[in-house]
């Protein structure tokens, strides 16, 4: 049962990485889109494509938190008493990102938009970095079972830095590929080219850092490296294939399948981490079954996840389809006034 809950937890992590990650990545592009005039069009596209979905995507984080603390309470408190600094920073980013984005959408004066936009964009880089470094700390076994681990070295270490940088980069890559497709759908060839170049660049850099990362892991987290090159190897190879496929499609200017390949690459890397970590939840000292809550709680969590699958997945698909065909959205289709 504990393993089932762990799988559900990981599904949440993957969904957050692929969906929430793309929203953070969009913030990265927003950040480097240049001055108010130059960055106007790319920002507008980011805004229109994020607005209807970001809260739903953000909810995956809540899902992960609640499953973690109900299913594995000891691991949760071990994490919060060790990695509290990056958690607080991520939280700061979440507050500023959400508020900045929502407020920018509702303001019309440039100075205000600039302020809110800066908050949104800067925090969109800070938050994925923190989450990536937290993942690095967990994977490299720097969170002791009893908690209260080193507050600094648990997230400032080679594996964590790699995790943070990779998180920021892959979010940017994901977002750029999504935005290419969005630009195509809205029939904006200039923007499509704009994001295509950026997606190619981000994809290439992400790939290069991943390859360099192999050596970092070998030196800093030998056990993780061992597992990644052992049982998790097929997943990592598939992830690399997905990454290359995405880049190839971008290079050929094909939009069909480009989002899917990019998302699959990121999802497979996260999966690989999960497989490499199994059967441990923290490093190599706390197993999933040791950390698990009593069976009745696990059963409730499984039940909640099943209900979620029945209720939430169709709703999410509905939202994505409605927003995909423009029945839900902002901007481009000027609403006729009812008065």
């Amino acid at each position, binding site marked *: 049962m504990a393993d089932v809950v762990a799988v559900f937890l990981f599904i949440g992590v993957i969904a957050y990485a692929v969906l929430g990650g793309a929203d953070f990545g969009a913030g990265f592009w927003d950040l480097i889109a240049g001055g*108010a005039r130059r960055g106007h069009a790319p920002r507008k596209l980011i805004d229109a494509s994020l607005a209807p979905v970001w809260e739903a995507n953000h909810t995956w984080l809540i899902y992960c938190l609640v499953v973690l603390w109900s299913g594995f309470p000891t691991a949760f408190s071990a994490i919060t008493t060790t990695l509290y600094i990056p958690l607080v920073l991520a939280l700061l980013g979440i507050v500023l990102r959400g508020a900045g984005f929502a407020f920018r959408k509702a303001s019309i004066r440039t100075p205000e938009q600039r302020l809110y936009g800066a908050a949104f964009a800067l925090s969109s880089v800070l938050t994925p970095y923190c989450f990536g470094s937290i993942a690095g700390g967990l994977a490299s076994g720097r969170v002791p079972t009893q*908690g209260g681990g080193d507050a600094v070295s648990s997230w400032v270490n080679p594996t964590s830095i790699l995790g943070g940088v990779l998180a920021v980069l892959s979010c940017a890559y994901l977002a750029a590929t999504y935005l290419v497709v969005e630009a195509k759908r809205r029939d904006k060839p200039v923007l499509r080219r704009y994001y295509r170049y950026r997606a190619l660049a981000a994809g290439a850099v992400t790939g290069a850092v991943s390859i360099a990362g192999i050596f970092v892991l070998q030196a800093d987290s030998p056990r993780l490296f061992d597992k990644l090159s052992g049982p998790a190897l097929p997943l990592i190879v598939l992830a690399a294939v997905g990454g290359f496929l995405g880049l190839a499609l971008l290079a050929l200017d094909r939009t069909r399948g480009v989002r899917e390949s990019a998302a699959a690459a990121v999802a497979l890397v996260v999966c690989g981490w999960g497989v490499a970590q199994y059967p441990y939840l923290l490093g190599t000292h706390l197993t999933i079954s040791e950390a698990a*809550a009593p069976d009745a709680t696990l059963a409730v969590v499984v039940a909640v996840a099943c209900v979620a699958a029945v209720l939430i997945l169709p709703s999410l698909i509905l939202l994505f389809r409605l927003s995909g065909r423009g029945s839900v959205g902002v901007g481009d289709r000027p609403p006729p006034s009812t008065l």
Partner: protein
Amino acid sequence: MTIADLVPYHDLVPYQVVLAAADPDQLLPAREQMAFTLGFHIILVPFGVALTSLMLIANYRGLRKGDSTALLLARRWSKVAAVLFAVGAITGTVLSFELGILWPGLMKTYGSAFGFPFAIEGLFFFLEAIFVAIYIYGWDRMRPWAHFWSGVPVALASVGGAAAVIAANSWMNQPGGITMRDGKVVSVRPAEVFFNNAFWLQFWHMLLAAYIVAGFVVASVYTVGMLRGRRGRYQRLGFLISFVTAAVALPVQIFVGDTIARQVFDDEPAKFAAIELLPTTGKNVPETLGGVLIDGKVRYGISVPDVASILAGFKPSTTIKGLDAVPPDIRPTTAQVNIVHWAFDIMVGTSMLMLAVAVWFLWLWWKRRDTLETNRWFLGAASVCGIVSILSLESGWVVTEVGRQPWIVVGLLRTRDAVTTVGNLWPTFGVVVVLYAAVGTGALWVLHSMKKRWQEQGDESVHVPYGPEDAQGTPPERSEGKVS
């Protein structure tokens, strides 16, 4: 082997009193931060729960009767709800992080019991986030009735979400449904945890509070408008939908509140003693209005003979346990008692004030309906109800939370034993205060400018330019050419 295993209880008491004098360093900032962030978040809850219902009522009326004013109200309320929902979503996320960062002791030991209602809450929140997006961004893009129905899951899911959070909170007040062995939860009976003894009443209390606060706050926007001379059908309808919703919920709320007070008398005697400002157990207990507890004595209050006993047990001879019935090591401090008592008095007092305004409205509606929009005294009173209802909400929440001290889970875990021992919380707390002040100011400013825009331009499709427009007024679309 701890001290408690070696020393019999009565011997231990003096030790614990000594220990209690030195609370862990982190306790104060942790409690302040939790109180501050929760106190902030709780203001947003009514809008997530009830503003969406008001919006649907207006939407329904608009479609049913072809009422364009009602549709306009629904549309604008949905935009306000969108901003507040975003702020609520992020401040809610802060709270879930804080449960782990500030109170690891709580999550570690009781996460398996206390935590899973939040998993259910997460489910509801997910649905809410999805359908709120469909509704808000679906105006004029979906068929009108399909659009209306897309809003219904929002209202339902928000009620479910509130129920789940209340389940967790009420469990802390009256925990049940778990078996402990060696300080660990070994088995959990989920239904008993969720539907604990305090759940139903606390749930109704919060749900009604949400409708009262959202209703009165929204109504106050329109009464202020009327006071300033904006007296159209738009203001009138906006006022009526919101005010009537709140006014209907209020008497039910007072009944539920009274029932809760008796439940607290039965099941949480320490909280009840604090509410009644009662140092010593006794019969014929007077109701103390105001007053403070100083050195174990009640001073300066207005004392109404026998009333507390009558309210608690319907007869003057009802015995009420005082603070002296609580063992000294788990007795709330004098300051806590005073806070709880005053918060309770403020909650009840403000509810009575709002009830008076609601009755006044009823009388005007009946007798002098045509003066409703010009009666400056009434409009003034109704305008104040918005702020007063928030004060009432906050006080009620203080009664629940401070009234539980020194426990975080009554009878099982003390707050001081749940608090984190790592890091230094004061700087974080400082950052949180600054951050929330900025977010709060931002939200108010954004809502204010939205309102101004609506008043000045009446424009619904405000084009939001991401950058300055050219001096000649060239549409910013043009700049796309220069981008790459």
